[in-house]
């Protein structure tokens, strides 16, 4: 009995699985299906966005001064944004369900965060250029120093030559130390199999975040207090080196990691020793990225104020000797100018800050252009140079046809 009943059961189940039930046809056909748009932005979205934006602006305008005693620019922006989010959510909820509304609101919050970041950058750059514009126009800013200029002198007198020269000297000296050491350390982290690599890597990371004042304090404690040298541009360049080194190591290491392993193996397969592989294959392949790393380090070093303040000191004369006497740098000059209450000096401070910022931004743009090229891709000039070199190599190779060896 059990057997047969099971069999019947199974058959029924099988039939129910394999048969297809056709839904009963409705008397009236439902409305024809509309093709759903899956694109990100539809015309309706734009209208809703614009509409809620306008509503928010208009309402806030009414609230500020007309209907309620609100005032202040910051308050205006905040109230307008809050109103915008509320109105936007309301409009979206007319057609969409809850998850969609939440999605739109969160999207507008993210966009607002990015806009705030962008606005902050624009206002920092714009404000500095604006306040420094008069002093920037005066050509004496770039060719004079402050040695013959009193605090009450007009902008036509005095400049920041001493600070520009000091920055160039200090950063060049720092580069002499950091470029070989930094690149070698990056090669160490990436090309060797030493057991210390993990430790070195985490120490370099920690060093990236070393407060700059401590680098200055360290050089002050050792170079000035213990070794007894005087405060000088060289001491400043030592302190700046400590700040630049970890940046160069970190970004160079990231680039070296991108060098394809098969290039290394190809080189080793030809019998090249490791140091030749690194020198002739790895480093040239990553050249653009390495230049980028050095530029990033320079951009960091140029902007450091505190270490220079501690170990080099403030001066108003041009000093081209890094071994003795205080030496000024651009950020230190900014700092010194704006500590004074004199309007002319403050204007000079802004002009100096503008020069410094343009320098850093230019360095940064160059770095981005260079880094835009992927590792291992040659520019046209590099490719031509490689061709020439290998043509020269061909001359050395003796082709023996039918030889025995």
């Amino acid at each position, binding site marked *: 009995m059990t057997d047969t009943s099971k069999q019947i059961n199974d058959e029924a189940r099988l039939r129910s699985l394999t048969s297809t039930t056709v839904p009963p046809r409705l008397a009236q056909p439902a409305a024809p299906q509309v093709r759903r748009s899956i694109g990100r932005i539809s015309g309706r979205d734009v209208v809703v966005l614009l509409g809620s934006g306008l509503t928010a602006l208009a309402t806030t305008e009414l609230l500020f001064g007309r209907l309620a005693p609100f005032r*202040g620019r910051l*308050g205006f922006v905040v109230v307008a944004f809050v109103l915008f989010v509320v109105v936007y959510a309301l409009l979206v909820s007319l057609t969409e369900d809850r*998850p969609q509304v939440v*999605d739109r609101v*969160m*999207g507008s919050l*993210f*966009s607002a*965060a*990015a806009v705030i*970041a962008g606005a*902050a*950058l624009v*206002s*920092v*750059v714009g*404000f*500095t250029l604006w*306040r420094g514009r008069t002093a920037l126009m005066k050509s004496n800013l770039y060719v004079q120093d402050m040695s013959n200029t009193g605090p009450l002198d007009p902008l036509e007198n005095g400049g920041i030559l001493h600070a520009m020269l000091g920055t160039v000297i200090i950063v060049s000296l720092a580069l002499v130390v950091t470029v070989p*050491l930094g690149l*070698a*350390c990056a090669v*160490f*982290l990436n090309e060797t199999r*030493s057991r*210390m*690599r993990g430790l*070195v890597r985490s*120490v370099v*990371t*920690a*060093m990236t*975040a*070393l*407060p*700059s*004042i*401590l*680098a200055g*304090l*360290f050089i002050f*404690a*050792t170079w000035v207090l213990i070794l007894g040298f005087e405060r000088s541009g060289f001491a400043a360049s030592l302190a700046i080196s400590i700040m630049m*080194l970890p940046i160069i190591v970190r970004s160079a290491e990231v680039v070296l990691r991108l060098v394809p392993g098969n290039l290394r193996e190809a080189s080793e397969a030809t019998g090249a*020793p*490791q*140091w030749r592989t690194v020198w002739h294959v790895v480093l040239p392949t990553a050249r653009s990225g390495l230049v980028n790393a050095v530029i990033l380090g320079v951009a960091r070093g140029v*902007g450091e*104020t*505190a270490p220079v303040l*501690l170990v080099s000191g403030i001066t108003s004369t041009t000093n081209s000797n890094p071994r003795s006497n205080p030496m000024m740098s651009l*950020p230190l000059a*900014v700092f010194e100018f704006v500590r004074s209450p004199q309007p002319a000096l403050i204007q000079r*401070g802004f002009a100096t*800050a503008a020069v*410094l910022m343009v320098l*850093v*931004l230019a360095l*940064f743009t160059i770095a*981005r252009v260079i880094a835009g090229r992927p590792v291992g891709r040659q520019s046209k000039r590099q490719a031509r140079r490689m061709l020439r070199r290998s043509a020269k190599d061909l001359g050395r190779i003796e082709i023996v046809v039918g030889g025995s060896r």
Partner: protein
Amino acid sequence: MQTKTALPVRDDERPSPTPREISSRRGRGDRNFNRGLSLTGISVLAVMAAVGLFLTIEAWDAFRAVGFKFFTTSTWQPDRRVFGVAAVLLFTVLIALLAVAIALPLAMGTALFIVEVVPSWLRSTFIAIVDLMAAVPSVVYGLWGLFFLQGQIIGLSRWLTTWFGWIPLFNVSGDDPTSPLASGTVYTASTFIAGVVVSMMVLPIACSVMREVFSQVPPGEREGAFALGSTRWGMIRTVTLPFGRGGIIGGTMLGLGRALGETIAVYLIISPRFDVSFHVLENGSNSVSSLIALRTPEATGFGLSALMAAGLTLFVMTLVVNFVASIFVARSRSGAGSEA
């Protein structure tokens, strides 16, 4: 089908081939090369160790003079042997926490905007904006804070203390917000303004770490969420944020490390004070690094040793914060294994 194997003709004359000795031992040049490279690694370690060591040596006198009271005294008078970092450290931490509190939501929003919201042709522009923010020297941020932001933000400070003055943090003594003649000078040079300016420097650091981690979210999981009918925010909440948790924490702590050590911008904005106060909106604040920058140029002997002790405190603090941060960041990277 049958296959035939042709055996090679045996040649007894030839000596049997012996396997060639293959050694992975490097030549002398390479060994020297490796030694030289290790030396550079050691030198980096040595520099960092020397920073800690020499700060400790120089700070020894100060620590021996006051002992543990160094962390409980708030005045700074090394010549009378009465000094400590209680107030300075408190202000440093307050500035850093404020900066992180402001920068964290902005950095997270910006990172999510860059990774998820912005169309791809605009993405590199926003990445460049964040990178440029990181590249602007801190003295420029200080100028901006001192001459631009301070004027704008006093209204906000007054509003906060008017409505939220009952929270001790926002209380301001010495100003009656209801008086129309109040000048607003009580609100200048405060911890709050310093915190806002430092947050502008923390934002790009935290943002770039978060962006990096968010962009490593396995595409399979993202698309899986979308395929299940999730909205973009639903996907972010269930996939991106859990995946990037390590990056969010690590990026925030890296920013905190930067905020603790910020010197020149804070120095420009605050007017130093040495009493313990939690009123962040009030005039006057301090920080370890600006204390060092302010006092070192004219300090001698024992005063210098006291400053070194303050520097050592800052060194240990940033080191701990950064090591914790790098552990979190490293851990979040290892989560990328779920891609398989």
